């Protein structure tokens, strides 16, 4: 089996499983779930095989798909270190989350649909990772959008799920609009959309770098990775089942935006990169603040995801795509861990998601809690944990570039520690604050295993030298680049101190501010306006809601009225009416009296004779 075929199998296995489920296993939920999990496992196996066979040339393959005149679409693989790294992560985390879902969704009526959706998602995600050209990326980009739509809407008959899925898809579409335009422009600009060819062209003549195209392509990233101003869909997307949030909206899909940037890094001029850095930083801070306004455990995690994505964007913008990827990977580990942990808690608390109704979970669900805490620490970037290395590198990069970004990102780190602390103290300690919390119970094996594994990864994931050497080449590259910048060491120490300080201060601060097992939000009590401001998240949803309901809808109604009354009413019906009136008129000419008719003859006679004697020269 050649490496290409291996990749093909890795790509098509989940599709096959999805089709199988869709057509034959709709009513056999259990079977469907096993099929899907098996598919996920197979993906991981194929990935490993592929990485073994890739050699240092990578795997390249391409098939023509559609040709019209000058326009040629091809499908192909560009399986190099970067994509290998990403694929490994996705395959592994994906597999774990599949396993987790076995337990989590055990008693769900529509399991089959859920696992089918997961398989479709894996298919599309792997497609993005392996794609060798922009068009193919776009295709699978849309497909992950669809699968996320499907999975967010899993709980069909809840209004919020319906709304959230719709919102996610449409907001993503807005981003994809720019992406699409960027692609077609790029096609006629470079004569191809093949990544390596474009890179070759740009290496040959860097003058061809076009800010417009880069910016347009970045729109896709903004939509998918939920950056300003298209971030609104991500928190709502938490309406989906928790494993989905873990897989799609934390670990992989939202990160795909960053991955996409890394893939096409060579297309970006510094201006756009800088813009992206600023964008990411601001999102990091913004999301950090917003998290304080949330009581839903998943929403808090969602905002933390937002801010971490901001970090990745910043890393990329600062010119270190490798570090961005690094943070992406580590983040995938601990954020998946956190979400799964939250899922486990929610599962244990019988689908109670409000942190102020939990408490005392630690005693009830020890394993979950421990793993969760590990995840928290990793996220806060406590020294030695995976999160530390990546965030550390980002801060260093920021520090070396400019002070503002550095300060903001440090602030972000502090905020992160703060809201995670808030969550931890309130959820795990103190005494249960609701029936659900009292009856909380530790989850089953299938759910704990992934937690443990991910916890382990969150601890050691940061040590590059533990990685297989085919992987993370680009990360090493960027790290080296960072190391060789002057002032690295000094900055390293400052960041070390500041970062650790940030997380300690954050954790302790939240401890003292909120207190263990608080029953309600102290901030809300003490400083209502502040809390309200944070909760409002700069009123983005309100603004969009207003636009959709008041402006867009009314405009549409106006146009439809125009369409009916002006175009149909006046032009079409009007003409018919005129004819009808004329008809009535000419009908009334038939008076029935012979004289009335003889007049016609007289007129006719005079007319003809007159014409003959040339009275009417009109003729």
């Amino acid at each position, binding site marked *: 089996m050649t490496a290409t075929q291996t990749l093909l199998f890795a790509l098509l296995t989940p599709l096959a499983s999805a089709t199988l489920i869709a057509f034959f296993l709709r009513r056999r939920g259990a079977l469907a779930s096993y099929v899907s999990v098996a598919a996920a496992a197979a993906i991981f196996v194929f990935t490993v095989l592929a990485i073994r066979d890739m050699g240092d040339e990578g795997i390249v393959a391409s098939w023509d798909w559609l040709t019209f005149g000058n326009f040629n679409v091809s499908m192909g693989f560009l399986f190099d270190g970067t994509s290998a790294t990403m694929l490994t992560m996705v395959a592994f985390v994906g597999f774990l989350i599949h396993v987790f879902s076995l337990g989590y969704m055990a008693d769900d009526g529509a399991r089959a649909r859920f696992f089918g959706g997961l398989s479709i998602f894996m298919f599309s995600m792997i497609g993005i990772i392996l794609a060798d050209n922009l068009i193919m990326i776009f295709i699978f980009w849309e497909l992950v959008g669809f699968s996320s739509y499907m999975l967010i809407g899993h709980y069909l008959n809840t209004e919020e799920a319906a709304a959230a899925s719709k919102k996610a898809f449409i907001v993503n579409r807005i981003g994809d609009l720019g992406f699409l335009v960027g692609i077609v422009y790029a096609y006629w600009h470079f004569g191809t959309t093949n990544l390596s060819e474009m890179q070759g062209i740009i290496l040959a003549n860097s003058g061809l770098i076009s800010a417009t195209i880069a910016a347009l392509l970045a729109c896709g990233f903004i939509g998918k990775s939920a950056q300003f101003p298209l971030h609104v869909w991500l928190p709502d997307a938490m309406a989906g089942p928790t494993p989905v949030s873990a897989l799609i909206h934390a670990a992989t899909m939202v990160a795909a935006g960053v991955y996409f940037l890394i893939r096409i890094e060579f297309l970006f001029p510094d201006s756009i990169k800088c813009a992206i850095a600023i964008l990411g930083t601001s999102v990091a801070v913004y999301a950090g603040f917003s998290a304080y306004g949330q009581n839903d455990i998943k929403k808090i995690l969602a905002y933390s995801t937002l801010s971490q994505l901001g970090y990745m964007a910043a890393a990329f913008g600062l010119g270190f795509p490798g570090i961005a990827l690094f943070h992406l990977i580590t983040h995938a580990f601990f954020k998946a861990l956190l979400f799964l942990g939250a899922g486990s808690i929610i599962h244990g608390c019988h689908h109670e998601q409000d942190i102020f109704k939990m408490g005392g979970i630690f005693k009830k669900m020890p394993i979950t809690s421990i793993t969760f805490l590990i995840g928290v620490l990793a996220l806060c970037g406590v020294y030695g944990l995976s999160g530390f290395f990546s965030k550390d590198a980002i801060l260093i990069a920021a520090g070396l570039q400019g002070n503002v970004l550095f300060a903001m990102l440090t602030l972000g780190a502090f905020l992160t520690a703060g809201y995670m602390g808030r969550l931890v103290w309130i959820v795990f300690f103190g005494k249960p604050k609701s029936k659900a919390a009292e009856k909380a119970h530790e989850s089953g094996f299938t759910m704990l295993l992934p937690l443990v594994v991910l916890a382990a990864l969150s601890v050691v994931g940061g040590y590059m030298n533990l990685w297989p050497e085919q992987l993370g080449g680009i990360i090493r590259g960027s790290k080296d680049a960072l190391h060789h910048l002057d002032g690295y060491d000094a900055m390293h120490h400052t960041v070390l101190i500041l970062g650790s300080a940030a997380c300690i201060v954050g954790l302790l601060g939240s401890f003292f501010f909120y207190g263990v097992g608080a029953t309600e939000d102290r901030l809300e009590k003490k400083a209502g306006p502040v809390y309200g401001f944070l909760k409002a998240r700069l009123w983005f949803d309100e603004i969009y809601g207003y636009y959709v309901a008041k402006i867009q809808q009314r405009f549409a109604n106006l146009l439809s009225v125009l369409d009916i009354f002006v175009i149909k009413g006046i032009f079409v019906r009007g003409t018919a009416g005129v004819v009808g009136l004329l008809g009535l008129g000419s009908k009334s000419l038939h008076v029935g009296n012979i*004289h009335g008719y003889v*007049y016609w003859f*007289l007129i006719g*006679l*005079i007319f003809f*004779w*007159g014409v003959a*004697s040339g009275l009417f020269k009109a003729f």
Partner: protein
Amino acid sequence: MIDILFYVFAATVLISALVMVIAPNAVNAAMAMIVSFIGTAALFVLLEAYFLAILQVLVYAGAVMVLFLFIIMLLDVDKSETSYFNDKMTLGASIIGFGMVVVLVCSAFLGGNHLPEPGLLPVIENPTGEGLGIEYTTSTKSFGYSLFTKYMLPFQVAGFLLLAAMIGVIVVSKKQEENS
């Protein structure tokens, strides 16, 4: 001399025709009609179409008008019909229409500017018919000849026309028998 006759007859024709048109009483109209027909016959005579003149008097002044008078009497509709004088609309319209037609007619025929005046050819007793068509003649014989040679087909068709008319009159006016 003959010219004067022309004017006299022409005047007779036109005036009696006008009388016929405006006479409120149908019987008077019919009488005026007869006069104008006879005037026409006289004009025919001036044009030396004696046979036609006779025919005119016999058929029109005789048969047709008698038929008219007969019907008028039968239907007893000779009560004077003056409504059209009150009906200003009709009156005005007809006057205008009439005027326009007259103008057109005069513009066509007055002063021979459109139709050159041919000189009167002599009337031949024994037409020889060299060239196309028979020269103008008074001899009834040639009339009959050409009817039965050149105009054979129309002549026969006219026969059927009369037959159809006869059948039609019967169909329309015979008392319906209550059979079938």
